[in-house]
């Protein structure tokens, strides 16, 4: 049975800060290729964003929340260190309490982890329907150059075996042991990074290219057969770094390069970028998604677009709706003077 994406939704918070405002405050801006980024309002967090995209994804099918048999949420920035996250979104959206739920929170790979959990559910329950929401607004100290890239956004997908927009063709995964890059010690709420750039880059490349090339091999595909390639975006240069090693071109990366205008969306990076690619993809086109999470691991997923049905609120609509804030207001909203 073919399974895949039956609906999707995306949400970008309205507030933006420009690279120039960072440059004014610090003398430089350390997120390669990022021109501006999105910021959540004071009364938003990953759960409110997840609730919003979950509703949008259901509307795009269209279907109702009572049909959902599996819910998964992904974020590296849960509002509680211990307490179930799924329940808040399920109750708000109206997903049955009996739906199997899971929270994926330990790395930026969480978005694809949650999607694969949803896909495994519908693969083994032909009548099942999964709703997967990835929302993130990662936090670091303002003293850490890693902080410059951090943006905010969310995307959700309805996964099933029916009424497909994009069919899942296959997936591969790769996990390994690396450390020192993007981690939160037990006592900390902020992301740390030891700034060992070459070592971090070697982890990123090893994991993503291993997952990506394994999937190409599994599906007997050549890189040029993909129309769109979505790669994890800690900044806007990483996709080209990884893509060139897998022989993907800038043209293939263009539709999913959301970090140029939104920054690093953490666990929502590949989900939001996949939604952006789905918005412009034509029937018959193929999309490859490659996530990355420090520590480290990567998932690669391959989709074939089978319907020209699109999200009810497109990525570009939310991306165009914006209000700029300065760096002082940004720090107040983030509570980031630490």
């Amino acid at each position, binding site marked *: 049975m073919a399974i895949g994406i039956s609906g999707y939704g995306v949400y970008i918070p*309205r507030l933006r800060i420009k690279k120039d405002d960072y440059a004014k405050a610090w003398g430089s801006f350390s997120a390669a290729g990022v021109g501006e980024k999105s910021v959540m*309002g*004071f*009364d*938003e*967090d990953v*759960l*409110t964003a997840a*609730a*919003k995209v979950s*509703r949008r994804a259901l509307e795009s099918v269209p279907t109702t929340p009572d049909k959902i048999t599996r819910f998964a949420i992904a974020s590296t920035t849960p*509002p*509680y260190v211990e307490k179930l996250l799924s329940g*808040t979104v399920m*109750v*708000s*959206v*109206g997903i049955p309490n009996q739906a199997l739920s899971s929270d994926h929170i330990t790395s930026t790979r969480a978005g694809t982890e949650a999607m694969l959990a949803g896909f495994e559910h519908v693969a083994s329950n032909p009548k099942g329907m999964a709703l997967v929401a990835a929302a993130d607004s990662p936090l670091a100290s303002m003293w850490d150059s890693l902080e410059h890239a951090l943006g905010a956004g969310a995307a959700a997908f309805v996964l099933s075996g029916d009424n497909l927009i994009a069919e899942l063709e296959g997936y591969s995964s790769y996990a390994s042991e690396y450390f020192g890059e993007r981690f939160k010690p037990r006592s900390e709420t902020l992301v740390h990074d030891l700034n060992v750039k070459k070592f971090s880059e070697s982890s990123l490349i090893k994991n993503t290219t291993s997952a990506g090339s394994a999937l190409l091999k599994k599906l007997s595909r050549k890189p040029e057969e993909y129309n769109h390639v979505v790669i994890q975006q800690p900044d806007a240069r990483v996709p080209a770094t990884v893509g060139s090693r897998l022989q993907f071109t800038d043209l293939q990366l263009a539709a999913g390069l959301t970090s140029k205008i939104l920054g690093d969306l953490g666990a929502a990076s590949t989900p939001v970028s996949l939604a952006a690619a789905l918005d412009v993809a034509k029937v018959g086109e193929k999309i490859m998604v490659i996530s990355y999470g420090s520590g480290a691991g990567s998932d690669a997923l391959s989709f074939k677009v089978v319907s020209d049905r699109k999200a009810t609120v497109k990525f570009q609509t939310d991306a165009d*709706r914006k*209000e700029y804030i300065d760096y002082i207001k940004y720090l*107040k*909203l983030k*509570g980031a003077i630490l």
Partner: protein
Amino acid sequence: MAHVSVPMYWRTIPQRYKLVGYKCKKCGSVNFPPKGVCKYCNASSEFEEIHLSGRGKVHTFVLISAGGAPPEFADQEKAGGQYPVAIVQLEEGPKVIGQIADADPKEVKIDMPVTTELRRIYTEEGVIRYGFKFVPAGK
């Protein structure tokens, strides 16, 4: 701070998270929040639970500025600036009070169409109190 205990807040989750309204079985009016006796006909205590659409129009509003926010909203005002609080007439009838989020306070107008979404209201006893706020419709 207007203290709302965790159990008290928990009991209001159907209203705050998903706008459950209470339709009077005698006169058909929708009570929100729930009442012991229908506040419109004063003649029935039998209700049917319905899901309100969240859609409505701004009946009237006020902008809360520095010094005007209740203590539980003071940080929100300090970090985010002025915020609107509105009485919204929902499509199903009831007039409901709530903040308007995701909008420039200067753009809020009487009769403006709004809808609802889940937001953080405030945090007390370390527990984040989520609930609906209004946002401009069709955006």
